[in-house]
């Protein structure tokens, strides 16, 4: 088990303004448990880590609770879940030493997140409260989306990260 303070997100991913992702992550996680929130990470074919699974105890301070209140007042539920998923993806990359999210680029309808100065692209998705099969189903959908995506087809490897906040489970996979 690994402990992680979410206030370290900006230190581990210094190229991005992580405050919003951090606030949204706290907002979603605290709906399920008080700090620390225990997250299962199922890992597949990672490039740096040989781990097949990890448990992360994600902790936060009262100051982050106050910022999470603002995030809840600002964003609609879907956006809150999306940004919270990006926050937890950044946590997973940090604790598994898989890389740093360094950049955002634009695609036709959304955005791409890049790892380690365009070494790979990452598809991220969050589920607020799923059931037993939700995580696997969403992960398959996102993997298809990654493989059919322009960046992957142009030769960039990719990751898929999906988290179900209610089930406290996530999957991180690497594809090349």
């Amino acid at each position, binding site marked *: 088990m690994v402990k992680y303070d979410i206030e370290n997100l900006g230190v581990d991913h210094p190229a*991005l303004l992580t405050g919003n992702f951090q606030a949204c992550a706290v907002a979603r996680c605290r709906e399920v448990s008080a700090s620390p929130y225990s997250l299962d990470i199922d890992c597949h074919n990672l490039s740096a880590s040989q781990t097949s699974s990890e448990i992360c105890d994600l902790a936060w301070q009262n100051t982050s609770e106050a910022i999470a209140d603002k995030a809840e007042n600002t964003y*609609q539920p879907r*956006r809150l879940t999306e940004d919270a998923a990006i926050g937890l993806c950044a946590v997973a990359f940090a604790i598994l030493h898989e890389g740093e999210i*360094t950049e955002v*680029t634009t*695609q036709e309808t959304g*955005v791409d997140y890049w790892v380690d100065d365009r070494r790979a692209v990452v598809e991220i998705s969050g589920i607020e409260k799923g059931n037993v099969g939700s995580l696997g189903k969403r992960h398959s959908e996102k993997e298809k989306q990654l493989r059919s995506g*322009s*960046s992957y087809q142009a030769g960039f490897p990719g990751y898929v990260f999906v988290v179900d906040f209610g089930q406290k489970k996530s999957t991180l996979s690497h594809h090349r």
Partner: protein
Amino acid sequence: MPDDRSIELKIQHLKTAKSAYILEADASLARGLESAGMALFVKAAELELDLAGLFRAQGDERNAQVSLRSAGFCYSRARQYRRAGNVFKQMAGQFADVRKWIAQNKDKDDLPLASATPGLQALIDLLVTKGVIEENEWAAALAPH
């Protein structure tokens, strides 16, 4: 002449800045703040073009193409279709979504940016404040039919 280290630092700064613009632009459009989102996407596109130029100056065409693709789609999301097309025309055709975009949008023109016309922006702000229109309605109304 700038050395490699100073160019690398400039690239890192530009990446952080344009990432912030893209995230804010994307969030603004998602909240229905059309004119703010469009203006932010135009700024992000300009920063991506700066990045592409720096990568090209280093002989790094792979990264230049990634930045050009992003710049074009930033313009497209700001409904600056002519500008997007001009960026995409510089590209080598590596990305399938760029080829598809050119096929579907090559004849479209730019939509006016409210932020570039203070009088228009003031009128839109007034209409939104008075509840006559929603923030995201004006661009659709001005689009050529």
